[in-house]
């Protein structure tokens, strides 16, 4: 068991290293010159040359990579080219709202998606199933920019139930979290429905029913437990992705998360900020996956024997 966990942790570190290295190579392939982006369109050749020299942008990719990696290992992510603010400060500022929004979205996905899925599986083929399927299809096909704008218009502008933009209170969180969760709610409902439907047809469920257990116990205790495996993996993946920031939702609701920062950094070729945010996102995804893997090991004893 310990060896297994150690191996997973090792793989996680390797994945993080690979992601940031690939990002580094990709930023070098962008045709835009960070020095030019930093100085603005009025900069002449001499000024651009000076900035390139100042930030060691002419030192060759390998040297730059070594330089950057060694500072990262020492915990120094550098300064944003554009704002001169330490990247670590920017991330520290943005990670709070991002985590808040991500967790709120996951909770909504579970609290709404799972019961919907159970309902659909238990009432397979009847109206609750069809209604749930239609609702999930609608939620999954509504793009965030549309759903977000619609919610914003109706519930914030017209009815005034929620603030229009910004963060800082629970009321601010509701609309962005719901917009972000909509697709996930639908997806979770579908996954739970199909897994649970399969489980309900399994032999052990027939046995449980034959023992005369109440249907409620059969579904929730016996079938659902076995249907949860894929959901745990999904939560891990989702949490990682959501922690990387939600560009569209953050933009619509002026939510001060990581996503907006990443988008801006990419558009402006702000190399230290791109690399720093990708690093944090990679760590988030990898750690979330690691945790969901470990949770699965704990949930399902059969997996522990597979080497």
């Amino acid at each position, binding site marked *: 068991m310990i060896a297994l966990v150690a191996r997973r942790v090792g793989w996680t570190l390797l994945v993080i290293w690979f992601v940031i290295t690939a990002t580094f190579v990709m930023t070098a392939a*962008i*045709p*835009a*010159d960070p020095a*030019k*982006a*930093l*100085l*603005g*369109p*009025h*900069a*002449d*050749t*001499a*000024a*651009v040359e*000076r*900035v390139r*020299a*100042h*930030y060691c942008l002419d030192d060759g990719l390998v040297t730059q990579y070594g330089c950057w990696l060694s500072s990262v290992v020492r915990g120094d992510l550098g*300064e944003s*080219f*554009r*704002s*001169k*603010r*330490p990247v670590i400060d920017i991330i520290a*500022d*943005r990670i709070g709202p991002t985590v808040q929004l991500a967790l709120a979205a996951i909770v909504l996905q579970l609290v709404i998606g799972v019961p919907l899925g159970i309902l659909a599986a238990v009432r397979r083929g009847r109206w609750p199933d069809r209604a749930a399927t239609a609702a999930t299809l609608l939620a999954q096909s509504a793009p965030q*920019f*549309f759903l977000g*704008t*619609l919610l*914003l*218009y*109706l519930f*914030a*502008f*017209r009815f*005034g139930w929620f603030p*229009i*933009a*910004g*963060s800082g209170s629970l009321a601010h969180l509701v609309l962005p979290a719901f917009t972000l969760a909509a697709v996930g709610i639908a997806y979770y409902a579908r996954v739970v429905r199909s897994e649970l439907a399969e489980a309900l047809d399994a032999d052990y469920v027939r046995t449980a029913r034959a023992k005369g257990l109440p249907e409620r116990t059969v579904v929730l205790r016996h079938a659902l437990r076995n249907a949860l495996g894929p959901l745990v993996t999904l939560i891990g993946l989702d949490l990682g992705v959501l922690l990387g920031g939600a560009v569209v939702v953050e*933009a*619509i*609701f*002026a939510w*001060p998360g990581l996503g*907006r*920062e990443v988008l*801006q950094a990419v*558009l*402006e*070729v702000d190399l230290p900020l791109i690399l720093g945010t990708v690093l944090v996102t990679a760590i988030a995804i990898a750690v979330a996956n690691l945790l969901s893997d470990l949770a699965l090991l704990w949930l399902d004893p059969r997996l522990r024997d597979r080497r």
Partner: protein
Amino acid sequence: MKRALLILALAACGMPDRDPKWRPAGATTPRRGGTLTVAMKDQIRTLDPVIAYDEASFYGLVPLFATLVGYEPHGTGLVADLAERWEVEPDGLAYRFHLRDRLAYADGSPIVAGDVKYAMERALTTPDSPFGPMLVDVVGAQAVIEGKATDCAGITTPSPRELVIRLTKPAPAFIYLMTMKFTTPQRAAHVAAAGDAVRRAPLASGPFQLESWDEGTKLVLRRNPNYWDPALPYVDELVMYENIPRDTQFLMFERGELDSAERLASPDYVWITQQPAWRPYIHTGTLLQVFASRMNTTVKPFDDRRVRQALNYALDKEHTRKLLNNAAVISHGILPPGLPGRDDALPPYPHDVAKAKALLAEAGYPDGFEVDYMTQNDEQGEKLAASLQGDLAEVGVRVRIQLVSFATLATVMGQKTGPAFSLTSWVGDFPDATNFLDARFHSRNIADENALNDTRYANPELDALLDAARAELDPAKRLAMYRRAERILYDDAPWIFDYHPATTEVTQPYVRGFELHPIWVRDYTHTWLDLGEHGERVPR
């Protein structure tokens, strides 16, 4: 689709009354007090005046920092600001500024001439300041840029209230640099003590001072009690929300959460400009900017002037105006309206397909040609490129559109091997023709990489004219030279001249004394709130 559904939803809820909710209380003279709340689409990167060089950051800088020379409230005429007066030597080689008596920063410490010298030297010694290179005409500046000196010999302070700047050659446009925020006085000890935090620790000399800054979310400024003009500003507090998309701003504005909405997004713009009740509160201004399509004049087929002229005749500028909802002035050249030296009598190239075809045939392209066009991957860039594509197709020129980010476009345009045909734009730093024409069309600015003259247009006659105009001390003669330069560029047509953008802002009826500024866009120094007796908004 998005809009249609919104309108459906709107119909379902019943049409709300969308006229102004409030009216001016009716004061005849400016009143003091109150909080003005506005928002911006982007975020403020930094409040360090030697680094900040984007519109959003300028919104923060303008209220915080005063300079020796300033602009008149709603125009580009120069007025005394921290300097009560200034003199220029007859040979144009030295400027002497006299600071006002008892100037102080927001913290009460005195502002002295040496603080302006320090600020300018700081721009010179900061490698990633975009402003240092603008000071090259100052004696000794080049040595400081190159790291051979730290003291700029051409900037001296005979007394704490006197600053003298010597130039290596006459440059009448120099005075405009003293309006730019990087020349705002800064105390060396403050900058040293703040260290890296100087970007969020502004030592204010302008009408406002920093109250708080939640980066990326909200900047709050309050009155600077030590501002040299005790009558200003009128409002006590200025709140600027950051990162609020334009359509969201408009919703907040309609709900009364904002006192002003910037650069309306197009559906809101179209709607509000048709409302008589809102008309008095809509502010429109042309910016010191130009948008066009540039051609590399050294490669085929653009090396032939007739081809470039033909494309100017082929582009239907009325399409541009329509696509921009009329928020544009069609250009005949480079210099924006209101800029001294612009020849307002010169009409834009007319849309003339026959003439364009004739010119192309004369140049040896009777069947036109195929060409790539690189533009910015945003909504406006794509729309205008498609319009250009359609117009040029009429004369047989088949355009393939390539979409890239602004940063990529800015880099590759300046490369010798970069795209021959692309979108281009220029945002003026100050209202002088040299800031537009020298940078973009003097052959001195042709380089293999990062060429500012990215049309690679080289004309010795224009070079000589621009050099002479740059140093000419007689304003009338100087402007006549720029008019001639514009005529040369009009005829040689290195760009397909297109438009100068206008911007629109709508304010609540009780917001008074606000006009869009051609340089700063938003300047709230003279803005006041016409509210009721107890500071409440008066319902319509």
